[in-house]
């Protein structure tokens, strides 16, 4: 069970983590500035296991991998959106942050709602209702299952 943090459409990666923090040495140094321009309390309020729920085109803009990385470092369990911009989507899978497309969720939940994610079944449960999510292509699910792309690199080595 995790709490929902709700965002609207076209959330760009500059808003997830602004440029001025990207050259800090580590993701841990950057993560306290996550969503600074959209929700300045996000980084202090989010707890491991919580969810980010958004509308269309989440993560558009810059290819900065710091965007999914700070969300993962803060313990966000998954980002569930109506759609994702492709570079964010790919980066998230590569670092092992679940990104799930669910068309009907955004309108039916509020910020602060408690939600449960069943990755295997591809469903989320919230407010007594169940929402079906779109399954990842097998290849990408495989990357996620092994904990990201680097894990496969270490295995191949």
């Amino acid at each position, binding site marked *: 069970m995790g709490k929902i943090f709700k965002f609207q459409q076209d959330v760009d990666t500059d808003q997830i983590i602004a440029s*001025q923090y*990207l*050259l800090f040495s580590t993701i841990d140094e950057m993560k306290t500035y996550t969503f600074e321009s959209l929700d300045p309390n996000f980084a202090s309020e989010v707890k491991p296991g919580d969810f980010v729920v958004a509308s269309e085109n989440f993560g*558009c803009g810059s290819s900065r991998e710091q965007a999914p990385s700070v969300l993962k470092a803060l313990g966000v369990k998954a980002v569930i959106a109506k759609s994702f*911009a492709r570079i964010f989507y790919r980066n998230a899978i590569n670092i092992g942050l679940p990104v799930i497309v669910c068309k009907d969720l955004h309108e039916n939940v509020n910020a602060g709602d408690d939600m449960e994610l069943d990755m295997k079944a591809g469903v989320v449960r919230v407010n007594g209702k169940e929402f079906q999510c779109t399954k990842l292509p097998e290849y990408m699910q495989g990357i996620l299952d092994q904990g990201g792309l680097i894990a496969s690199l270490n295995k*191949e080595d």
Partner: protein
Amino acid sequence: MGMTMAEKIIAAAAGVSEVKPGDIHTVELDRLMSNDGTTHLTIDMYNKLKNPHIADVNKLVWIVDHNVPCDSVKTAASHKKMRDFAKANGIKFYEGAGVCHQVMMENHVTAGELIFGADSHTCAYGAVGAFGTGVGCTDYLYAMVTGKSWLLVPETLRFNLTGKLPEGVYARDLILTIIGQIGANGANYAAMEFGGEGLKTLDMSSRIAMCNLCVEAGAKTALMEVDQITLDYLKEHGREPKHSFKSDDDAKFAKVYDIDLSTIKPIVAKPHFVDSVVDAKECVGTHIDEAFLGSCNNGRIEDLRAGAAVIKGKKVHPLVRFLVVPASAAVYKQALKEGLLQIFMDAGAIVMNPNCSVCWGSCQGVIGENEVLISTGTRNFKGRAGHKDSFVYLASAATVTASAIKGEIATADMV
């Protein structure tokens, strides 16, 4: 079944005769560009690998461009890490030579190549018919170690261009108009391919400006048909095409758009979305605090010429900072030779070294609370150029320069 340019490049890189949208292929990459936005993190991950190695160091190009010269002690540490690693491993390294994509176009990219760049605007390389796509540092690391990656074959949106842009209207007006038309996710996961008679009227600088911005419609890559203008540009820069692909007549496009260039007008993209595109006349009179002429999108010699033509003999408004930032050292030197920098400086502009500058809002020229910037940069997202409560309008070099003179948004015919 015929294939599109994007499909042909992927097929060649995958070593197969045919691919179709939705397929996932393992591809051999020709070139891997990375800049100071993420390379320090790539190096940290590299050093933690069980067996760190580089598949082919000749594919790697590393460019310090986002915060150059360095602006803080924290940045200095990240730059040093990048510089030291490049030196120790024999990686081609640039610092101060310009914005990464301009440096790549001037020195490395050729037609038919498949290139990963750890920067979203890598799609610029389509201007010479190369498949460039933006990736994060994990993807970059994987490609650096293996020389390969996985790629989902995108659908292609085809843009047939006809006619010619009117006088005083630029490729930047054209591509922003297209993005406004299809929306910020109108090409999500897709390739945007440009061709037709109208393309022949667009010079290489215009083509780079167009392909560069396609990621703002969500595109995975942008591609332009290889023609005499491409071949001349490559020859001038000492390169031959790897492949000169063209989409087959029976290639399958997800959608086809017909764009008559003669109908395009000067436009402005309003805060905070690149697709909030309106006729520039609708924004005339909007107060500005700063104007920026530069970036990988619009900092080439042709853009500086357009700006200089507008401002020659005139003055920057006394309450406006006008930043002029050539996209590369080569552009800077050419602008010096042509007397353009003299014109800008006589007008009161601040001429700066080639770098990403305020386009990415973390180095020079950042704007404060409630301030307004008009920019030839790539993005106008909330907070992109500095304070989270500030405003960025995007426009062509001519419109930006005219606005710098007026102290409010203006088109070139108004000054």
